[in-house]
Structures are given as C-alpha cells and as structure tokens.
C-alpha cells in the first residue's frame, strides 16, 4: 500500500464517518481542535480505521499520541511496514 493510498483511505474515513469536508483534510490538521473530534469519536475512528485497513489497533498504545491527520498517516504507514 502506497503512502498516497493510505492518505486517501484515511481521508475517506473522515469524510464518511465524521462528515468532514475534503478541503479540511491536510496533514497538519489537528483532529481535536480543528475538526472537533472528542474521545468518543476516537473510539469510532479506531473502528473505522480497522475496517478500512484490515488492522487490529484497538489496544495499540500509539493511538494515544495521535493529534493530527499526519500522525494517523504515519501510524498506519508504520503498521503496514511492520506487517
């Protein structure tokens, strides 16, 4: 999976699950401050990312450090590299 595909699929999650407009989806966008997600949304974000990428990340401690969309892209990229 290429970096571009990861970005595209992650952005799809934000559009489909959180109704965020495409223009706001940039690597530097803070998912809490800029997009208004909260702790409950993060649970759903994990569910949606698991579904989209076929990964198990619910108990991955690195999720706690995610702040921006770029953090998610990098996290998924590393996961894919690990497997």
């Amino acid at each position, binding site marked *: 999976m290429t970096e571009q595909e990861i970005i595209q699929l992650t952005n799809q999650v934000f559009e489909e699950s959180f*109704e965020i407009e495409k223009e706001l989806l940039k690597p530097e966008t803070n998912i809490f401050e800029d997009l208004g997600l909260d702790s*409950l*949304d993060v*649970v*759903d974000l994990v*569910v949606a990312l*698991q*579904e989209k990428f076929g990964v198990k990340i*619910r108990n991955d401690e690195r999720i706690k450090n995610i702040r921006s969309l770029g953090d998610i892209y990098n996290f998924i990229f590393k996961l894919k590299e690990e497997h």
Partner: protein
Amino acid sequence: MKRVVITGAGAVSPLGVDVPAMICGIEAGKSAVRYMDGWDQYIGLRSLVGAPAEIVNEKAIPRSSRRSMGRMSIFSVQAAEQAILDSGIDRGLLTSGRLGCIIGSTMGSAKSINDTFEIMIPHKDLTRLSSMKFFQCISHTAVMNTAQHLGITGYVLATSAACASGLQAIGAGYDLIRLGKQDAVLCGGAEDLHPTVTGSFDILFATSAGYNNEPEKTPRPFDAKRDGLVCGEGSGILLIEEYEHALKRNAKIYAEIIGYHTCGSGVHVSQSNKDSMVACFRQALSDANIQANQVDYINAHATATIHGDKEEAEAIKEVFGDQVPVSSLKGYMGHTLGASGSIELIASLIMMQKECIYPTLNLETVSPECEGIFHVTEKLTKKIDIIVKNCFAFGGINASIVCKKIV
C-alpha cells in the same frame, strides 16, 4: 396544585414531517400503511405491513448531536423543535433548570439494537462496535438525545410502558408542574418501526396479517373484519406549561390538562382488561372533577386487535354510554406504539380547535362486540370542550388523560 396548559405541539408521523402534514393526511382520509419491502425474508413473520415515517433534513442536527441518535431520537428532536417554535417560549427557558424533558418509548432504538447485535453476535466480536451504539440502544435514548441537543437542564426522565409510554410522559410532566417542581415540560413519546418490533406482536398473533396485499385497508379499529394492529413510528412532543407562566407571556393555549390517571390491571401481561380500564377512566374523571357526560370526544387507543378493541369498547360503554363520540386514528397512521399517546393527543387537540371529529378509518361494519358506543364513521362537526385520550399497553398498563378547552 398549579394548573397546567398545553402551549406547543410538534409531530413527525407516518403522515408527514409536522403537525399540519399529519392533519392534512387525516383530513384527506389517507392511510400511511404500506407493504414493507424486504420483510418477507423473516421466517415466520406474517404481517408484512407497516406505517413508516420519513427521516427528512436530519443533517440540520449537527453531527456532534446526531451521532448518538437512532431513528426515534431524530424524530423526537425534530418534534421537540417544532413544539418549542409553536409555543413561542424563550429558548433561555431550556437552560434555566425550570424546564424538564420527559419522553417515553417501548425500548431503545429498535434498528440500532438490531444493528448492534448483527455486528456483535456472528463472531462474538466487540471490536467492530461504534461507541455510539450504546447511546442509540438505551431505554432513555430519545429523551437523553433531545435534552442534550437542546441543552435542557431541568428534569430529564424516560417513561417506558410500551404503548402507554407517551401518555405516561405527559402525565408525569403534568404532575411535575402541578407540584411546582417545573414551570414547563417538553413531553411525549417516540418509536422506531422495525421488523423485530412488528415481530414481537406477530408471534403473539396480535398483528394484522390478512391485508398484506391491500395495506391501506388495515388496521381496522372496531371493525368486524379487523385482524390486528399495524406498527408505525414517529414522535409527538408537547410543550406543557404552568398556567400563570403561560398567561404572563400571553401564550397561545391549546387546552388545559385537567385530569390524568395511570394504573395496572394486575391480571395479564398481554390481554387488555375492561375492569381496570373502567377504573382508569373513573379515576381520571375524578381527578378532572367532571362527570362522564361532560366529555365531548374520546380518542380511543383501539389498535384493531380482536380482544383489545372489545375490552376498550365495553369499558367506554360502561363509563360513558353511547352518547360520547369515539374514534381511533390507528387506521391512518398505524400504531406508533410509545409515540401514539402524544401524536394522537396532538391530533385530538387540533380537532378541538377545528370543532370537528375525524372518523375511524377502515371502520365499515362495527363488530358486534364493539357496539353500544358512539362510533364516528364520518367527519363530525361538533363543538369540543373536553376530550379524553386513552392508551393501553402490554404489561396491563392503562393511561387516560383529560383535556379541556380554555375559553
């Protein structure tokens, strides 16, 4: 005790997205009952008809509020918004702690409950569940979503008594205001239509199963050819208010709630019981301090089940005789279950305003065991000062409310 008046009404019903759409449908003698595509895949489900309500413009509710809402909560939020607008109250009252919210339903959102178990059960896997499913499935989902969305900080309660839930919510609000604990309450009921809901009645042979090919001919309250109920969905919400509070702001008043009672039958979990209905009527009339012959219209529960309609007709006959007009609205909108009490009370208040009584749709030949009461089979022009609205529910729950026009 303080006096309580109804000053706002909102409804999302099988006949449309607001109260005018509902009344327009009833005026036109329209049935919202239709054949439900896809229901035939359920093995053993005999009744394939329902009265669905349409979800329209739900994205006007921000995602942050909407994410925890199943169908019934979207309906209840929209109905509550209509009631607030209709009442003309200052929205500051919502956050004052003096306005409460009481909304009842049979259970949590049926579609959400079904979706949740469909995700979880096949592989016994919880990891695919959205955090929001819980908030859509819980018994107080409609009231908590509505109260959270509106920022309500007063009493927040959910009544859960199946088909009497909505009327019990109004009764509970009436009591809170009477006691001076709240100045106003948004109250009513909400419900989802889903094959599992119809199925719960179907396995008890309480649904209409003989009209799958001609859905508009069922349900048939009090009719000789009735064969059971048809489930519907939606929400009806009323804004009820302390009388002086309403007077001070020069509010439009639909009616005063002058009496209410709810009671159990103590007899059977599913079968309606005439004697306990009679007791409920008598106590509600006593609470209202009126005689039975002062009532101008009874909006019956009458869902078109064989036993329930008979018991209600006999109970009405015993208390009210054959001079008080009676009609049921189930033929138009099906049985909206927990929402039926509030939706049908709103329609009855409009009848009071318009000085007319809408007939029981599909009542062609009164069943012999339902005779002896004044069935309305054609639109009746009549001055209406006092109405009684009934709801009877599984669990042997009875509820009746008495409302009087303020002149």
